[in-house]
């Protein structure tokens, strides 16, 4: 057991604490209590009416973005798996036995920019969670045999996903779109790197020492929790964790200078798929292009968009047409995805999208349409905040990308400020042909579409 410090002393050791009440008009409606320990660990408590339950999250700002060494794509995600392999105090089996007693839901996820560890369990066992989770973050220890076995589970995870055309298409798209930046690979990594993972035991030890450090991590407790108690326990269990984060040297991606094309043959019968990406700005609450792009995604690809109505509802050229541009810490890709009814419709759909993009570039969009989109974004966000985990998921997303919770309110204020002119400018700057990466997939024998 770790050294226990009397709770009465802990208050004296805590650094200054701030409580941010929600201001009128803020999209995030809950009071946030925030403190930072001396070692840099940020601790956020968000009391929420969920009697007996808390969501206990640790947000590590490490993702596939940080996999800068060649041959190590997918390692952040692999390492997330290893975090469940135990410590000297709590072996994997012992950790699992305690979770069973708690009846807790335990999971983790890794993305481009962050890895999020989630525990949803009984509020009365907050100290148990603090003890177990701090122990594995400070003292993770696993054998090389366990490491090699877990690498196979990651390969299994890749295999379960690769029967769907989307994964290989995204792989192809990123590989084409990026040359230097680590967004070149999917979070799960390239297959050849996954296959090589069992040989990287020593690298994994360094990875842990280098990246899993308090100043790069946020502890987030949402639900039936008292901020003072959370902060006292955080100090008690995480206070002796040593600093030492060494950021990865992530190389910026130079501007794209020409359009890129790729095609994948698919061995099984399928309708043709298309995936089109444009180099896009990093998440920013200052750069209006960043916010305007979220609105453009709706203007073009929501179910109410004229483009969607034309292609999916009226002409029925595609059964799916949607966009995704996850928040990204560095400049990334805005991507839209479609599944056409037949091969000959792929270029027609692409032409239709291009035409609607040109319209956005050539004339300001109707301000009322923008207002409706802003309304949709606000209500959709509000509706996601109905459980401790739902709240923690949203907060984690913004912390992982922007590094702070304040960016949530800032982002929605920014949305409100986006004007038709902002949309027009963003459309002109982002949707340039030299920014485009276009990947198609069709049953064997299909051809790439230009």
């Amino acid at each position, binding site marked *: 057991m770790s050294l226990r410090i009397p709770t009465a002393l802990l208050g004296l050791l805590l650094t200054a604490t701030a409580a941010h009440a929600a201001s009128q008009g803020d999209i995030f*409606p809950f009071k946030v209590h925030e403190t930072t320990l001396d070692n840099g660990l940020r601790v956020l408590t968000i009391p929420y009416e*969920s009697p*007996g*339950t808390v969501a206990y999250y640790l947000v590590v700002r490490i993702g596939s973005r940080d996999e800068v060494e060649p041959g190590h794509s997918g390692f952040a995600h692999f390492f997330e798996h290893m975090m469940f392999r*135990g410590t*000297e*105090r*709590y*072996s994997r*089996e*012992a*950790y*699992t*036995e*305690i*979770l*069973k*007693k708690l*009846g*807790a*839901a335990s*999971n983790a996820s890794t993305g481009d920019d962050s890895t999020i560890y989630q525990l949803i369990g009984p509020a*009365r*066992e907050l100290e*148990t969670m603090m003890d177990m989770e701090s122990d594995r973050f400070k003292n993770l220890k696993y054998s090389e*045999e366990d490491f*090699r076995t*877990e*690498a*196979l*589970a990651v390969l*299994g995870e890749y*295999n*379960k996903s*690769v*029967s*769907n055309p989307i994964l290989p298409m995204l792989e192809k798209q990123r590989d084409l779109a990026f040359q230097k930046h680590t967004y070149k690979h999917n979070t799960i990594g390239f297959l050849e790197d996954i296959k090589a993972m*069992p040989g990287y035991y020593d690298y994994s030890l360094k990875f842990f020492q280098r990246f899993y450090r308090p100043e790069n991590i946020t502890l987030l407790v949402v639900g039936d929790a008292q901020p003072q108690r959370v902060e006292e326990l955080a100090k008690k269990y995480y206070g002796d964790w040593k600093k030492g984060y060494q950021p990865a040297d992530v190389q910026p991606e130079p501007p794209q200078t020409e359009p890129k094309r790729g095609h994948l043959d698919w061995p*099984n*019968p*399928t*309708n043709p798929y298309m995936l089109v990406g444009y180099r896009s700005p990093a998440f920013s609450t200052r750069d209006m292009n960043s916010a305007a792009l979220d609105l453009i995604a709706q203007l073009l690809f*929501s*179910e*109410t968009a004229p483009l969607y*109505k034309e292609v*999916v509802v009226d002409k*029925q050229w595609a*059964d799916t047409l949607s966009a995704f541009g996850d928040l990204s810490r560095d400049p990334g890709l805005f991507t839209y995805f479609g*599944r056409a*009814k037949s091969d000959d419709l792929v270029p027609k759909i692409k032409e239709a999208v291009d035409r609607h993009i040109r319209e956005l570039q050539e004339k300001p969009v109707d301000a009322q349409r923008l207002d*409706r989109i802003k*309304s*949709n*974004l606000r*209500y959709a966000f*509000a*509706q996601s905040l*109905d459980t*401790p985990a739902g709240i923690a998921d949203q907060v984690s997303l913004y912390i992982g990308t922007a590094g702070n919770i304040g960016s949530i309110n800032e982002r929605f204020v920014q949305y409100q400020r986006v004007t038709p002119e902002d949309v027009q400018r963003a459309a002109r700057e982002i949707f340039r042909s030299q920014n485009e990466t276009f990947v198609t997939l069709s049953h064997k024998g299909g051809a790439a579409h230009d």
Partner: protein
Amino acid sequence: MTDRRSLIAALALAGALAAPGAFAQSAPPQKQAQGSSGIDLVTLPSESPLVAIRLLFDVGSIHDPAGKEGLAALTAFMVSQGGTQKRSYSELLDALYPMAASLGGNVDREVTLFTGTVHRETLADYAKLLQEALLQPAFAPADFERNREQLVTYLTNSLRSSDELLSLELLQGEIFKGHPYGHPTEGTVESLRGITLDDVKTFYREHYTRANLMLGVAGGYPQGFPDELARAFSALPAGQKEQKALPPAPKIEGRNVTLVEKETSSVAITLGHALPINRSHPDYYPLMVANSYLGEHRTMYGRLMEQLRLQRGLNYGDYSYIEYWYYPPGTDYPTANVPRRQQYFSIWIRPVAPGDAQFALRAALSELRRLHDQGMTKDEVDTVRTLLINYSKLWAQSPSDRLGYLMDSKFYGMPPYIDEIEAHLKKVTAEQVNAAIKKYLDPDDWDVVMIANNARQLAETLRSDAPSPKTYNSQAPAQVLAEDKAIQVLPVKPTSIEIVPIDQVFQK
């Protein structure tokens, strides 16, 4: 391996944990009524700024006429993804969009659900649109063509390209072959093509009735709102509540293998058999303990996960079920409003390397055999009891989920399910658990579906029942190697093996 210090630390901590049930919360106020509207109404008020509405109709794919499989699904699509008599589908979407709302149609074997959650600021507007869609659907020909093709594409592209979903769906078809549960809710390519717009109109008229509707409202709604909404839906025809009789599931004799031939890099495996009980039966709860011990969904807790993934690195995950589970790859907890009177037991082995397929099947069967023959100890039952009583409290956290669970309990004619779990599990004994295992789980008679490249070769491998030695990329623990010696020669003895090309799956 567990070392002594870890065990001591774990035991010390475990001893400090509170008794089962301490995680429980007092039941929220709820009301179930059948007022002047003649509609079953379930309400669940709270202080939430959100309001969830669920309309659950007693109509599902079991009501599809022969040769028109998919009609219930297509009808629901025409209601939730079609125009109304006042506005086109596009106009309906335009109206829903600013409130970030949808009508959320979903069809299962026995029920059809329409659901939405909105902020209370937009509740009145949303309720009007919901009524319009449900009471005055346009049934426009263009919507019909689009929705029918959406369903066909789902079968031919989405399902056929997801090996896991494909195996999970096909297993149900095998277990319930010739039974009303036997076809996908989406039907088949040919049956969908045989459905006409008039079929949809007739189906809607016959089944979307007051008698078939259960209406649920939860969250921070204004006083009187649920009754107003119920009165609005009293415009539906009265109908007559008549639960369709179901034959018993066909008895599985032996071990029946269905192999889907498809170019794929791994092998997805799902196996199971029918169960004669559902959650309304007292035996369900001891069986629930056994199932959780074997393979609690998406957790590291079960024996299957421990033995196949964590000890042997065979794949990404391995779980078991005693109820239909909606969309296992994408859900953590059981989804509300997919109730079924008849259920099945299943084991889901996530894709494995082709060379490990036979071994993985044997390893899972070995665990099933072990559970069947050896049962669970009292300590094991106590551990799972605590786990489930606490864990099940997480299944219905949002107002919408709580409402859905309550409505399901009404469907099954039982007290609230989450409360029942605690009430039953507090009392369940190891003897009851082991008796339920013996009575309901069958390691000898089951169907298995495998999605594989070179299915013919896999068929030969399975038919031969030859040893399937497992090799590892590092030194495996001695205990694992010792267990492997028994697993690799476990007799499977397939009774039948059928190979189905991928392009014939869901075709007719």
